């Protein structure tokens, strides 16, 4: 018989129960397949992220982590599958989602200031011609303050360090004032101070009852940052609370190979693994 893996995935994954989309799940996808050309980047993935918690999407490079997020948001087309946000189709729920794209996805030479970028988070709210002054201008300033960038409001964005750019993107997402925050590699290439600042903001969001889903690549911080993990390597490998699903076995299944084995040794030294 198939060896039972001690994860929610193993119990839930291929049984009838998981076919139902929990209406309360901030983000749930079913049968999601995305392909670039003839090779699936994400194949038939079912996932359901819990509310009021911090979830990490983990997997090796090229395993479809960011693709999963972008396809869920409709930024890239999907070959098949359905996406639900709080039980609704994504189009109806856009106002409830905030999104932090990968830092490298935009041209930082664009002629604009930090404040302008943060205000973009308000565009959905103010529409095309609504005034962006008064209270809303205050909102943008508060968001910058929350990521420790208030003094940089009028800087040209090209002058920011990588970490500062990431904070600006986070501030923009905060300005969206959403219930679900989707972040694509928020800690990639940022300095230690920024990483701390970002995680503090995210934990605060969770305490306010918001849900956070982040694509994450640093296995050593999974345990301290997140409550829930989703392991992916084109297909779903495991999913569940960190204590249950973030196991050596699941990681080995996801990453494969000896390379991961040495990685895992380091992790157990740090004490990151169960």
């Amino acid at each position, binding site marked *: 018989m198939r060896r039972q893996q001690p994860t929610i995935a193993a119990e839930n994954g291929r049984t009838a129960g998981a076919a139902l989309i929990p209406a309360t799940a901030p983000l749930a996808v*079913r049968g999601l*397949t995305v*392909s670039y050309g003839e*090779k699936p980047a994400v*194949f*038939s993935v079912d996932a359901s992220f819990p509310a009021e918690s911090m979830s990490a999407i983990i997997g090796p490079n090229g395993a479809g982590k960011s693709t999963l997020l972008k396809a869920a948001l409709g930024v890239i087309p999907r070959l098949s599958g359905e996406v639900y946000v709080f039980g609704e189709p994504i189009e109806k729920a856009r106002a409830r989602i905030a999104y932090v794209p990968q830092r490298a996805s935009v041209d930082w*030479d664009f002629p604009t200031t930090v404040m302008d970028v943060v205000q973009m988070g308000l565009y959905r709210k103010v529409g095309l011609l609504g005034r962006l002054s008064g209270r809303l201008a205050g909102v943008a300033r508060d968001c910058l303050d929350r990521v420790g960038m208030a003094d940089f409001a009028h800087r040209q964005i090209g002058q920011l360090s990588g970490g500062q750019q990431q904070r600006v993107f986070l501030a923009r997402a905060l300005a969206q004032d959403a219930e679900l925050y989707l972040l694509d590699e928020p800690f990639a290439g940022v300095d230690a101070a920024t990483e701390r600042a970002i995680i503090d903001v995210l934990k605060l969001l969770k305490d306010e009852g918001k849900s956070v889903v982040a694509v994450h690549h640093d296995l050593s911080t999974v345990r301290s940052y997140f409550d829930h993990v989703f392991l992916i390597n084109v*297909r779903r490998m495991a999913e569940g609370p960190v204590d249950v699903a973030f196991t050596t076995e699941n990681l080995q299944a996801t*990453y494969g190979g000896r390379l991961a084995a040495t990685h895992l040794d380091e992790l157990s030294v740090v004490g990151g693994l169960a």
Partner: protein
Amino acid sequence: MTPFIDALLLQAGYNAALVAIGAGLLGFAAGASGTFMFLRKRALVSDAVAHATLPGVGLAFIIMVALGGDGRNLAGLLLGSAVSAWLGVLIIEWVVRRTRLAEDAAIGAVLGVFFGIGIVLLTVIQTMSAGRQAGLESFLLGSTAGMLFQDAVVIAIGGSLAVFVTWLLRRPMTLVAFDSDYAAAMGYDVRRVDLLIMGLVLAITVTGLKLVGLVLIVAMLIIPPVAARFWTERASRVIWISGAIGGASAYIGAALSASAAGLPTGPIIVLTAAAIFVISMLFAPVRGVLAAVIRHRRFQARVHRRQGLLALAAAHPIREGYTLRLLAREGLVRPDGEPTESGRAQAAKIARDERRWDIAREVHQDAGLTGRYDGLTPIEEVFTADEIGEFDRRLGPPTPVGAV
């Protein structure tokens, strides 16, 4: 049809034969030499180069008249056009290197401004007493039909030189076009290779300018390589296919143009090339649109079929209409989504493969193999029969669907 076949077989008179041969040579040279500009993703630099010749033509005319010579001396005009086009190339390169402006802005700015200067100079020439019959307008639209024997010789020599240099330096140019950082790391001077690529285009432009005009020479530099790209994945082959397409479209176009009145040679050549491009884009075997659409639809059906069977195996409902229709058409499910007998059998096979994969990934903890676990690759493609037999031994006897 007969006049066209006559022209094709060079039986339509000396002049028509000369034009067909000269145009064919130019088309071949332009197609081959334009290849790397396209592969370097800078096809429109050719356009800027062509437009940037105009002030040189005008200035050369003015200078030659001022020195008391004949302003229409072709060698002088071509020299002038080469100098100003080269200046345009250097300015594009300088703007991209030294300022924050992107390449497309630099190309467009040089194109528009040089052409503007050229027009100013043309209006100056029109006011000169020698300029009344200067005939410089033919540089705009060309006068292919007026080709002389010496023009054909110039094209043959200039074209062969450009093709020879393209062939000789194809390796560094391929490297730079493919990955300029890597080429730089290998010790190639990327800037010089880029200038060489632009120099080749410039040489062809100057050679063909008087004959097909500046807008249409651009077509001869851009369309054949783009069409050729659909037929091969190898840069060295693109050169020759592109040359062949350019040569063929110019030769056929010239013959077409000679076969009836009112068919100007330049535009007909371009439209022939465009027709070959359309055929290539639609019907090329691998990269063509038709092939890609068929492939994509097949792939999509494969994905949906597989996902549907996985859902059947797990006793999940199938929600997507397309999946349901697909499986129903194959008789795997009933219209209400309930699996049929053969659907159950197929699902059981898929479920078994999935469990085999689980075992396989446990046994072979190897990144190379887990990478193939993408849901579509059949397990038989990755493991040998005896390996699969071993997985089956561990799995135990098959279980019917629904009993999972």
